[in-house]
């Protein structure tokens, strides 16, 4: 069996279109990461200077570290006061809103800029004080603000796409109750980016499917099925070896991709913030009681399961057709139609079950599916769906190959 798997892997690696697709995805990932890092621009809070690339990252880190610590009620009250003071100072100076950052520094000095525009544009204040302002009157604790923010979203429905039933609302409230307060804030840029890039594995799935397109169909197309099927192992170990080799390839490629995403981000931005709450990275309206590290593990495990499920779909199509084109076309359509489907309100919940959109929204938004009293969130439904595809489609693909008729 081991030797057969080895040969099947060799065949997969010999699929030029597949290898080019896989290499392109990796190249795109590398290029975007490098571009993202080198083109970053920010104005340093401490010097007021505009800085680029690595300096910009260092400056952003310094600012985040300045806000690090526990978000107690006293602390957030001070933060709210600081933002209010910044807004008030801005209103007291006529024409300030028309000036850009450099003009404010040149006209009123660095310290004034640090107390006004720099505070108003600081994402930390927008997130924390904005969350307090979700309650009316303004909440006195971040927990109350976050609860009001989530409650408001539950009442509004998901961006107008769908409304939440009472059991779904109860589900999300229950989940939110698990969050520990007061929350710890800190720098976590590397892991934040890793989470933002989790959907990338949804795109990588397309490359994997192209690579696997010839696993069965290639035998039909190249007329090799006629010599491999009438052998002792042709209808027994061979189909299993093909599936095993395909899943090994998917695993290896996925590990390479995830390793690159995580490795590059950690090298460039550092590994800090692994233990911080997920809300520090993804927003205080996220009800998942997870740390950033737990969310990274879960999101990437989910991405892996999605990749395996899609591989099984690719294998099933490959076992049924004589050309590799439909395998690539159908799986690509499956991935990209999800993005389009998101814009069609009635289809949004279905579109969210496709790889790219599903992984984009998992652990970031309150997407749930209810059947009577049962409620499951998007990651759970994705895990069940793609797990079921893996379990159901691989035996079907093997069966189709065994029953292939050389005619």
């Amino acid at each position, binding site marked *: 069996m081991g030797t057969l798997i080895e040969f099947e892997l060799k065949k997969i690696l010999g699929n030029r279109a597949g290898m080019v697709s896989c290499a392109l995805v990796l190249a795109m990932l590398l290029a975007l990461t490098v571009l993202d890092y080198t083109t970053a621009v920010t104005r340093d809070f401490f010097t007021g200077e505009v800085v680029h690339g690595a300096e910009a990252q260092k400056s952003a880190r310094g600012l985040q570290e300045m806000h690090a610590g526990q978000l107690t009620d006293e602390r957030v009250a001070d933060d709210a006061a600081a933002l209010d003071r910044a807004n008030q100072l801005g209103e007291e100076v006529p024409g300030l809103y028309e000036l850009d950052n450099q003009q404010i520094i040149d006209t009123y000095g660095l310290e004034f800029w640090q107390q006004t525009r720099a505070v108003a544009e600081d994402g930390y204040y927008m997130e924390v004080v904005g969350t307090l302002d979700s309650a009316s009157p303004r909440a006195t604790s971040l927990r109350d603000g976050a609860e009001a923010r989530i409650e408001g979203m539950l009442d509004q429905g998901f961006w107008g796409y769908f409304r939440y039933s009472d059991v779904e609302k109860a589900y999300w409230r229950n989940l939110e109750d698990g969050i520990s307060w007061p929350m710890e804030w800190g720098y976590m840029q590397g892991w934040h980016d890793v989470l933002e890039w989790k959907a990338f594995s949804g795109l990588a799935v397309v490359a994997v499917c192209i690579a696997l397109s010839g696993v069965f169909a290639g035998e039909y197309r190249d007329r090799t099925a006629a010599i491999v099927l009438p*052998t002792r192992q042709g209808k027994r170990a061979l189909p299993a070896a093909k599936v095993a080799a395909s899943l090994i390839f998917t695993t290896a490629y996925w590990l390479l991709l995830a390793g690159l995403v995580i490795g590059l981000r950690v090298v460039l931005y550092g590994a800090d913030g692994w233990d911080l709450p997920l809300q520090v990275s993804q927003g205080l309206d996220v009800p998942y009681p997870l740390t950033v590290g737990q969310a990274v593990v879960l999101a990437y495990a989910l991405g892996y399961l999605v990749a395996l499920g899609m591989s099984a779909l690719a294998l099933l199509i490959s076992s049924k057709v004589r050309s590799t084109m439909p395998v690539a076309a159908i799986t690509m359509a499956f991935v990209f139609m999800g993005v389009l489907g998101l814009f069609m309100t009635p289809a949004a919940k279905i579109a969210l079950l496709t790889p790219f959109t599903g992984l984009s929204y998992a652990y970031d938004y309150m997407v749930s599916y209810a059947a009577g009293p049962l409620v499951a969130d998007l990651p759970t439904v994705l895990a069940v769906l793609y797990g079921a595809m893996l379990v159901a489609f691989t035996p079907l693909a093997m069966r189709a190959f065994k029953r292939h008729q050389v005619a």
Partner: protein
Amino acid sequence: MELKLDRLTKQFGARIAVDRVSATLAPGVTGLLGANGAGKTTLMRMVCDVLRPTGGQILLDGRDASELGDEYRALLGYLPQDFGYYPDFSALDFMRYMATLKGFSDRDGRARSMELLDEVGLADDARRKVKTFSGGMRQRLGIAQAMLNDPAILVLDEPTAGLDPKERVRFRNLIAGFAQDKVVILSTHIVSDVEFIANRILVMRQGSFVLDGTPEQVVKQAAGKVWECRVETRRAEEMSASLQVANVRYATDGHAVLRVVADEPPMVGASVVEPTLEDLYLLVFSDGNGR
């Protein structure tokens, strides 16, 4: 060992490719002769369990081959007509792969592969990629893979396609030596492939066996129907256009000697000659208009 084809039928939509053929095959070479489209390849595919029959069954020593499954396939060696290959595999890789599929351990498979590559004259090219091989080399590789497991049933569909005359002779000798105690089915429309090595000839036309017997018995069917005619060159061309002419030999004196296959003498003065298997083939596959 006995391989029995029992009313084997294959229908593709309205077209019947193989029509209730029955035969009992014993060890030795069985030559399956037929024109393109006669149903030979379809029959071979059913024998090799890669095409499900519409009706009938294949019995190996009285046991249904479809029920024997892996046990039956373990006894098979098959060289299909359209021999596909893996372009990025070397000849040795391909043989090792096929050996693994046939149940060899990697070590034994490698040794057996080298032995057969040597036998078909590809030992020096064992590490070359198959995509760089000529048609004849690929065909020899196909023959080698079919023989890997020393099959009890060897099925060869147009095995000499692409082989040069020297390779053909080598192939024939290889099969003759191999077939002592095995069932070898050699499907071809090239008569000389089977003429000297087949113990039995099955002639297939429009999905059915129309002749069955030893080469001598089969050839006898053409006795009295093969004629030699000596005519002028111009007349030879006219006769070639209207009769089933097996051979034309032009003499230096302006005459030609024609070998004609026909039920009746093609001309006054035509003399009957001893038929060959090729004459019989022409007789069976003439289009009804004498051609």
